[in-house]
C-alpha cells in the first residue's frame, strides 16, 4: 500500500446463491427443498457477482466505475460501504467513508422535512450537533424552506429529492462513495448538485462513483474502472477505460443490433470514409487537422425530399448534429434517382483529443429511412500540441475547443483610475 492509498481492494469476490434474494417464501418450501434430494446431489447454484477485483485509489482521486447492467458496479460499492460483506478478499479503507447508494435513504413520509433532515443525517453518519450546525445551509440549498415543517408525504417527488440531496451534499466525509445520484430535480438543481460535487472533489476529497452518464464521468473523474461480469476489464486513465467500454458495447451489439441497416427501399448508403484534407483515408488526426467525412449514397427512385444526417459523439455525448441541407435555401436538391457523394469537413482546432464515433442517417423531415450508429470511428491526438498550448488539453472541462477568439484591449491606465465603461 503506497502512502497515499486510501482504498486498497485485494481480490474482492462476492458470491450469491442464485435465487437467494428471492428467498424461500415459507419454511415448508425450504424444508421441501432440503429433503427432496440429498445435499450432495443438489446442483450448485452459486454465481460470482464480483471476482478477484483488485485496485488502489489514491487520496484525492475521483474514480468513475462503468460497466453494463449487472457488471457488479453496485455490488462493489455496497461492499466498500459495508452494506454487505464480501465472500472473499479484503478491502482496506483509510479515512471516514460517506456513502450515498440512494438519495433519501430512510426518509419517513409521516415526518416533516425538518425531522427527516435529522433522521437522514443521522443515518448517513452525521452527529446531531453536526446536523444542527449545517441545518440552515441544508434547507437553503434545497430551496424548499417554506415547506420544511410539512410532512414529507405531501412533497412532490422533486421536492423530496431536493431535500434528500441537500442532506447528502452536506455530509463531509474524507471518502465519498456515490451511486448514480446526480440526476435529481430539474436542470437548474442538477447543475447546482454537480457544482457542489465538483467543489467537494476539488477540495482534495476522494470520490468513487458509478454513473451511467459517461459525460459526467469524462468531465469529473481522474481515473476509471471498467467492470464486466464481475471482473475488472480496464482501469486507469478515463479515455483508455472509456474506449474499452465502447469496444465492449460494440462487441455486444456486433450482430447488427448496433449498426442499423444501411439499405432502404428508396435509398442506400454505399460507403462511409474518413479522410484527411488531402483525401487520404485515416483514422488518427492531429488536433489541428481538419477531418473530412465522406459518404456515397444511391437514391433508387425520384423522391420528394431527402437529407443526409450526421452525428459526431465522444463518450456517448453528442457533440455535433448536422444535415447536408443545413445552410442551403432549397432543402431538396439531391432527391432525384442517382448516385451521390457528400462531404462534411470538421475544421481543425475544434475537437479535443479523444475517440469519436460517427452516426449516419438518411430521411425526410418526418420519416427516417436509415439510422446507423458508430459506422465510423476516429481519434484526435495532441501531436502538434506543446506546453504553450495547454488550453486545448483534453482534461479541461468543456466538450470542444471554442471556435471563438479572445481579444483584449487596455481601456485605461492603471492606479486608481476607473475603467471607462464604468465611469459615471
Amino acid at each position, binding site marked *: 500500500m503506497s502512502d497515499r492509498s486510501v482504498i486498497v481492494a485485494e481480490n474482492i469476490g462476492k458470491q*450469491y446463491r442464485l435465487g*437467494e*434474494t428471492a*428467498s*424461500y*417464501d*415459507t*419454511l*415448508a418450501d*425450504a424444508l421441501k427443498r432440503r429433503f427432496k434430494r440429498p445435499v450432495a446431489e443438489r446442483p450448485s447454484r452459486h454465481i460470482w457477482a464480483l471476482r478477484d477485483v483488485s485496485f488502489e485509489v489514491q487520496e484525492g482521486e475521483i474514480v468513475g466505475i462503468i460497466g453494463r447492467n449487472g457488471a457488479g458496479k453496485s455490488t462493489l460499492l455496497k*461492499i*466498500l*460501504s*459495508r*452494506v*454487505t*460483506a*464480501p*465472500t*472473499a*478478499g*479484503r*478491502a*482496506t*479503507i*483509510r*479515512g*471516514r*467513508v460517506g*456513502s450515498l*447508494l*440512494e438519495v433519501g*435513504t*430512510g426518509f*419517513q413520509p*409521516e*415526518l416533516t422535512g425538518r*425531522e427527516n433532515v*435529522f*433522521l437522514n443525517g*443521522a*443515518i*448517513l*453518519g452525521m*452527529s*446531531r450537533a453536526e446536523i444542527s450546525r449545517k441545518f440552515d445551509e441544508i434547507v437553503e440549498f434545497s430551496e424548499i424552506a417554506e415547506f420544511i415543517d410539512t*410532512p414529507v408525504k405531501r412533497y412532490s417527488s422533486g421536492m423530496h429529492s431536493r431535500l434528500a440531496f441537500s442532506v447528502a451534499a452536506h455530509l463531509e466525509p474524507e471518502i465519498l462513495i456515490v451511486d448514480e445520484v446526480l440526476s435529481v430535480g430539474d436542470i437548474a438543481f442538477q447543475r447546482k448538485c454537480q457544482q457542489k460535487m465538483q467543489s467537494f472533489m476539488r477540495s482534495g476529497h476522494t470520490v468513487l462513483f458509478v454513473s451511467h452518464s459517461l459525460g459526467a464521468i469524462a468531465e469529473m473523474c481522474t481515473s476509471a474502472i471498467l467492470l464486466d461480469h464481475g471482473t475488472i476489464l480496464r482501469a486507469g486513465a478515463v479515455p483508455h477505460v472509456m474506449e474499452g467500454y465502447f469496444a465492449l458495447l460494440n462487441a455486444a451489439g456486433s450482430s447488427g443490433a448496433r449498426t442499423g441497416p444501411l439499405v432502404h427501399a428508396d435509398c442506400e448508403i454505399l460507403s462511409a470514409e474518413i479522410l484527411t484534407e488531402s483525401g487520404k483515408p485515416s483514422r488518427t488526426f492531429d488536433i489541428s487537422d481538419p477531418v473530412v467525412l465522406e459518404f456515397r449514397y444511391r437514391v433508387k427512385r425520384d423522391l420528394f425530399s431527402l437529407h443526409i444526417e450526421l452525428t459526431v459523439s465522444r463518450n456517448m455525448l453528442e457533440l455535433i448534429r448536422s444535415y447536408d441541407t443545413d445552410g442551403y435555401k432549397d432543402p431538396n436538391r439531391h432527391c432525384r434517382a442517382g448516385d451521390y457523394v457528400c462531404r462534411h469537413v470538421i475544421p481543425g482546432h475544434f475537437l479535443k483529443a479523444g475517440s469519436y464515433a460517427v452516426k449516419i442517417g438518411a430521411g425526410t423531415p418526418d420519416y427516417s429511412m436509415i439510422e446507423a450508429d458508430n459506422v465510423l470511428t476516429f481519434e484526435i491526438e495532441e501531436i502538434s500540441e506543446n506546453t504553450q498550448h495547454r488550453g486545448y488539453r483534453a482534461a479541461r472541462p468543456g466538450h470542444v475547443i471554442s471556435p471563438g477568439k479572445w481579444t483584449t484591449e487596455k481601456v485605461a491606465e492603471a492606479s486608481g483610475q476607473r475603467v471607462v465603461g464604468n465611469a459615471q
Partner: protein
Amino acid sequence: MPGVEPGVTVIEPARGFGTPDWTAVWRLRGLLSVFLWRDIAVRYKQTMLGVFWIVLQPLMVTAIYSVFFGYIARIPTEGKPYPVYVLATIVLWQFFARTLSEAGTSVHAQQALIGKVYFPRVVLPISAALSSAIDFLINFAVGLLVISAMGYPPPLRVAGALLFFVASGAFAIGLGFWLSALDALYRDVRYLLSFVLQVWYFATPILYPIAAIPEQWRWVFWLNPMVPLVLGFRWCVLEGVAPPDSLQLALSASVIALVFYSGSVFFHRIEHSIVDRV
C-alpha cells in the same frame, strides 16, 4: 478490531464467531436515539390522543378479563380483586411480547434501509426493544397509580420489579436476535410467532395464580422461563402474594443468559450478510 490503526476500516468476509461490538452500540447512541424518536414520532403522528393509546391497551385488556374471568368465571386471585391482580403483571407480559415481536421483525422491517446504508445491524433490535421499554415505563407508572387508587398501594420492594423487567427485556432481545435472522429468511416466522405468543401467554400465570394449576401439571411451568419473572414481578408490586421459587428463578436466569449470549453471537455472525437474504 485489534491491530488496526485508528481511522482504518478493514472489510473482510465474516469468519468465525464473536459477540457484537457492544461499544459500537454505545458509540451509536445518537443513531439509536434517532431511531427511537422516529418510532415514537411515527407511531403517534396523526393520532389525536397520542400517549393515551399506549395506556389504554393494558387497561382495556384488564377490564375485559375482569368481566370474563373475574366476574363470570370467578378465578381465585390470592385474595386480590381480579383487575388489581391482572394489572400487576399484564404490563410486563405486554412489554415482553411486544419487544420479542418488534425486535424479531426489526431487520426485515428495515430492509430498504439496510440495503443502502451501513450501521451495526444490532442497533435495529436494540432500538425496537428500547421503544417498547418506553411504553412499558409509562404503563407501569399508570398501572401502579390505578392499583394504588383501588386500595392496594405497592410495598417498598416495588423497585425490584425493574430487575424482572430488565430480565424479560434481555430474554426478549435474545430471542429477537434469533428470530430476526429467521424472519429475514422465512415469511411465516411472524405468523408462527404470534401464534406461539398467544399460547405462551395463557401458559404463563398472568390471568390466574400458579396455585390454580393441578400439582401434576406444575412441571410444565418449569420449562417456561417467564413464569418466575411474572411471579417475581407480581410479588414486587403486590403485598401478600406468593414469591417465586428461587431455584426456578436461578434456572430461568441461566436460560435467559444463554439465549441472550447465543442470540447475540448468532446475530453477529449473520449481520454482515443478512442484507443478501431479506
